[in-house]
């Protein structure tokens, strides 16, 4: 069947639309998601198609947004709530971490919470330190929660649809940079016309190679793919593993890749201290130590807040160039 090129935003919008058509227990709410169709147009025209009972604008009340999602999920719906910037998830940290992620377990398995919180991080858009945080690593301490972060339109659509159908609370993290920056691999891409789903909890080998494994997620997958292209010219074959689901993590795919390449670079947008890369690297170091022929290199934002000025932010961020440099040193 046919495949079109869609942008990341269009793919997300299509996923929402399809799931809302399919299941009337899916409702959408958040700041500016209804009349405005989302500040980044991810919820565009949903209000028009599904009406104000299913698509609701909220006050600026992040605690209540996440709380309402929990309550609606407890009571039979499949809410998809939006928190406009990942940073604002901090306001609802109690609801997400101390409530949503634990409610099933602490009820002895009685309750299920089929909710999705969609959000996006804007690193790469010069939004400054209060609007660019990629806080996924801060949520790894909340098992019970699933964290999904797509890197391409194809994945965005398939993963969002699966997240909505999943019976656990899912934090669905989008990349603001992929919304707007046309130069990214993940900005636009092929999406089949026919329906498909992508399972949660499975990483994806986005490019096959033997010399080094590059684990990336969300925006940095684009950087990793660009790096792999450049490395190929230098005769280095990099394997790019896109985590896609950050929690629960697909360790198996990572370890299988490392077993083959014996070298690992992790490149992602957390601050390095306690980042997602720390979990990946330490896991490999614990369970596949004997396959490692070199230190595991972690490429992250350095341990400081993000500077706003775009010239500085560029230096702050993980880039294809930094990946190429790290890999080049590693395979020497």
């Amino acid at each position, binding site marked *: 069947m046919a495949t079109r090129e869609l942008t990341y935003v269009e793919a997300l919008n299509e996923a929402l639309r399809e799931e809302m058509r399919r299941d009337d227990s899916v409702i959408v709410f958040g700041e500016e998601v209804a009349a405005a169709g989302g500040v980044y147009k991810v919820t565009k025209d949903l209000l028009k198609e599904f009406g104000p009972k299913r698509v609701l604008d909220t006050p600026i009340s992040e605690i209540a947004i996440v709380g309402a999602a929990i*309550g609606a999920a407890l009571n039979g719906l499949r809410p998809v709530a939006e928190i406009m910037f990942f940073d604002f998830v901090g306001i609802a940290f109690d609801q997400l971490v101390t409530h949503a992620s634990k409610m099933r377990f602490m009820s002895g398995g009685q309750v299920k919470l089929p909710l999705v919180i969609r959000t996006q991080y804007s690193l790469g858009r010069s939004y400054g330190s209060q609007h660019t945080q990629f806080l996924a690593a801060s949520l790894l301490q909340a098992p019970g929660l699933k964290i999904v972060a797509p890197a391409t339109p194809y994945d965005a659509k398939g993963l969002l649809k699966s997240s909505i159908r999943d019976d656990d609370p899912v934090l669905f993290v989008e990349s603001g940079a992929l919304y707007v920056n046309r130069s990214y691999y993940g900005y636009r891409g092929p999406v089949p016309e026919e329906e498909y789903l992508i399972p949660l909890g499975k990483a994806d080998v986005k490019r096959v190679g033997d010399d080094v494994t590059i684990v990336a997620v969300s925006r940095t997958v684009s950087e990793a793919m660009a790096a792999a292209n450049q490395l190929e010219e230098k005769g280095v074959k990099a394997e790019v593993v896109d985590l896609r689901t950050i929690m629960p993590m697909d360790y198996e795919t990572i370890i299988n890749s490392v077993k083959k390449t014996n070298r690992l670079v992790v490149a992602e947008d957390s601050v390095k201290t306690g980042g997602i890369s720390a979990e990946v690297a330490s896991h490999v170091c614990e369970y596949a130590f004997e396959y490692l022929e070199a230190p595991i290199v972690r490429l992250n934002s350095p341990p400081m807040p993000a500077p706003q000025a775009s010239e500085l932010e560029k230096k702050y961020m993980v880039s294809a160039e930094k990946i190429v440099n790290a890999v080049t040193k590693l395979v020497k």
Partner: protein
Amino acid sequence: MLREQFSREKLLKMLRKMIEIRLFEERVERLYREGKIIGPTHLYFGQEAVAVGVIEALDKDDVVISTYRGHGHGVARGVPMKAILGEILGRAVGTCKGLGGSMHAPISVEHNIPLATAIVGSGLPIAVGVGLAFKYRERRNVATVFFGDGAVNTGAFHEALNLAAVWKLPVLFVCENNLYAMYTSLKNVLAAESIAARASSYGIPSYVAFGNDVLEVYETTSKALEKIRDQSGPAFIECRTYRQKGHGGYDFGTWYRAKEEIEEWMRRDPINMLTERMKAKGFITDEERKKIEEEVAAELDKVVEEVLSSPFYDYEKLPSLVYANPP
């Protein structure tokens, strides 16, 4: 004073529930003092009329969100005492298999109590979501959330009341104002004329009930439920009551509360108040009350024994309870 519309049967039912809660908590207190309960436990002594008055007025399909001081809510709703006590003692027979403990003991999906939270205030926004689902499905049910006077000062309270009012959701907010949050007197931390007045500022119909009078609580709840259904929007009840014991099992509730104040409230004990009224009406004798107490006590003897000799949940099975859909 005794409302005509309350049949003897109804009153007996409420009295019995209140006695169940009281005697249940007596066991819990004793087990705590004996060192058999490990972890925190918050007793409901003195507030029985709130749980029973509110919950008796609800429909069984209404949802209740409870708190760490929730044993009474669970008993009032008919969650088996064995399951509640089992949870408090951490056993596999507990409502939550012992994974929740005392602070989550009333959780029972079967009884439409999907949550009892240990975080002050955080249940309110969740109740808003429960109400949202009811409204969306055009059900005439109500999301009821219990919380204390201390919860009124949390950000979660504010966001929840505002959103429930803006979206006109069927949520019944029930504040159990027992005058203290831990050791802190309400008057030192609340900048408002009253809790009900604060709630009114959201345009939410708000009521004050004497929380030791189960009939007043019941009637106020019924009025609020009507209002919710008529106006399709939330309502708020402030129940003025008192905890007869300390904040938690370890606290005796004395150093921060005047002896006279405690005594005054003990005189207004909710169970005695109802008994007196029923006696005046000829609905019950002292002997009959005693008999109820004996029946409940006998049941509790059995429950305690059964729970104490029952096993803990199998630790190896815990990982399977983290996700509904494991990857």
